[in-house]
């Protein structure tokens, strides 16, 4: 079932078009990632979808109805750059946000503290927590109502690797339990790890939407095997389907299974080499390609 829907969403600020005709949907149990450069329209799109901003045109639907009419107890948002009251402890903050929801729709505070790795900091005020602990706590307060749809706007920015792993595990568990997760991020590795589908927004427009693997395959280019020859690369290239870049031979489209064959062929031809590099392109390359940065 579609939990989040955008149909031709458009949002303007004066002459500036922040979101321009955006359409997509997110299903239950799906992690949908939105990536794009700073100022591309990610946060504005989140605001339109959660009802904190009204689109100039088009329609947003949340749990089958307009964001303004949605049951707030089934939705959660972690805004970008959100800072909760600094003088409250993790226990108190989770309790505070839980008190805003019906009792029977909230999660156990202690379990949330444990799950987010904050047990050692229950008596520490938010302002005195480390950056990683703050980020984990912000995610925790967004989970108090056990939402059916959650919007996480750059939840792991400024967080340490261990904390990021904790957040990722929580996101994976949420999706496994059927929650629709709408995630914006700058970390491509986060998208590759978590997202079932990814959308790339640039200048307010979606330039690509699809399964993460498909987007990588379509836009990231072929795997590359790069061999630095001992002698002249220009002389060594004869008989090989490769290109020369400086003193290196570059083989495009060589998968991980083809590395051995390529090196055997070089050995057979008597081509000496002292360095071999192979890289399978990922979402980072697809992103750079789609945003025109390469």
């Amino acid at each position, binding site marked *: 079932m579609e939990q989040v829907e955008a149909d031709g969403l458009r949002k303007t600020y004066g002459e500036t078009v922040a979101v321009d005709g955006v359409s997509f949907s997110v299903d239950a149990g799906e992690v949908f990632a939105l990536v794009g450069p700073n100022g591309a329209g990610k946060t504005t799109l989140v605001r339109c979808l959660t009802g*904190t901003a009204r689109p100039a045109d088009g329609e947003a639907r949340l749990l089958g109805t307009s964001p303004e009419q949605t049951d*707030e107890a089934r*939705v959660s*948002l972690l805004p*970008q750059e959100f800072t909760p009251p600094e003088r409250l402890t993790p226990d108190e903050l989770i309790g*505070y946000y839980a*008190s*805003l929801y019906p009792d029977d729709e909230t999660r156990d505070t202690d379990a949330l503290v444990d799950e987010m790795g904050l047990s050692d900091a229950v008596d520490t005020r938010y302002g005195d927590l480390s950056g990683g602990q703050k980020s984990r706590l912000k995610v925790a307060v967004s989970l108090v*109502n056990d939402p059916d749809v959650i919007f996480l706007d750059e939840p792991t920015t400024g967080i340490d690797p261990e904390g990021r792993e904790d957040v990722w595990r929580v996101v994976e568990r949420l999706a496994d339990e059927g929650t629709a997760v709408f995630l914006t991020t700058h970390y491509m590795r986060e998208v590759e790890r978590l997202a079932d589908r990814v959308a790339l927004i640039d200048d307010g427009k979606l330039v690509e939407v699809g399964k993460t693997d498909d987007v990588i395959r379509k836009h990231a280019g072929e795997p590359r095997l790069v061999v630095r020859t001992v002698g002249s690369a220009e002389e060594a290239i004869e008989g090989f389907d490769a290109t020369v870049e400086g003193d290196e031979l570059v083989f495009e489209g060589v998968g991980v299974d083809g590395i051995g064959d390529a090196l055997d062929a070089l050995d057979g031809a008597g081509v000496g080499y002292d360095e071999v590099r192979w890289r399978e392109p990922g979402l980072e390359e697809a992103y750079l390609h789609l945003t025109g940065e390469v």
Partner: protein
Amino acid sequence: MKPSRVRGEASAEWRSFLRKPAAVFFTFVFPAILVALFAVVVGAGSGFFEEPQGYYFAGYLGFVVLLTPLSRLSSTVARGRDRRRFEKLATTPLTRAEWLTAHVAVNGGLILAASGLIALLLVAVGGASLTLSLVSVVVTAASVLIASAGFCGLGALIGRAVSSQDGAIAVSNGVGFPMLFLADTFVAPDTLGVGAPVVELLPLTYFSRTVRGATFTGGSGAELVTSLALLTVFSAFLFAAGAYALPWHE
């Protein structure tokens, strides 16, 4: 309006207040210092301050009732907007009216406590003579709570209008201090000249007249009811406008 949500918001605000020493100081100690200083000036019976100490009780309370909510709410709203707290709250079941009610409860309670302290100091240090009866206490307490609700609304409006916390405090003072001295608190309206007509348009005027009538001049029941009713109308309007202005949405 759901009491559990109001309680949750009020509880978080109360805890935050208690852990901020500067806020506690300015809420309780600053008015106490002010009363002590004015008690000396008024006691000397010079310049503007020719009335007995009890006459100015309404002014001292007006100072706290007006400036505490204005500065606290305006900065709270400006800070909450900067830190994206309202965007978060907008996606919870908490409503704007509930949020403001919670903050009125906290600030009203604080101001009520500060008012008691001021009354004690004025009597003990200044030697003021105040009417002490069930009616005077109930009317004064009701005036404090009703006025607090209105000025919390005005503080929210200022917080919405300004772009920073510093700006919020500056505008609060810019609005609050002129109102304080135009509202029949320390300066009698007939000495204001061309400014006198403005007095009747200020909600604080009806607060000071109600409190002074109940605690010092022995105002009639009709006078107290009329000024309290006008204060209630002003406060209801300011509360509604303040709640509507909270930056729940863009």
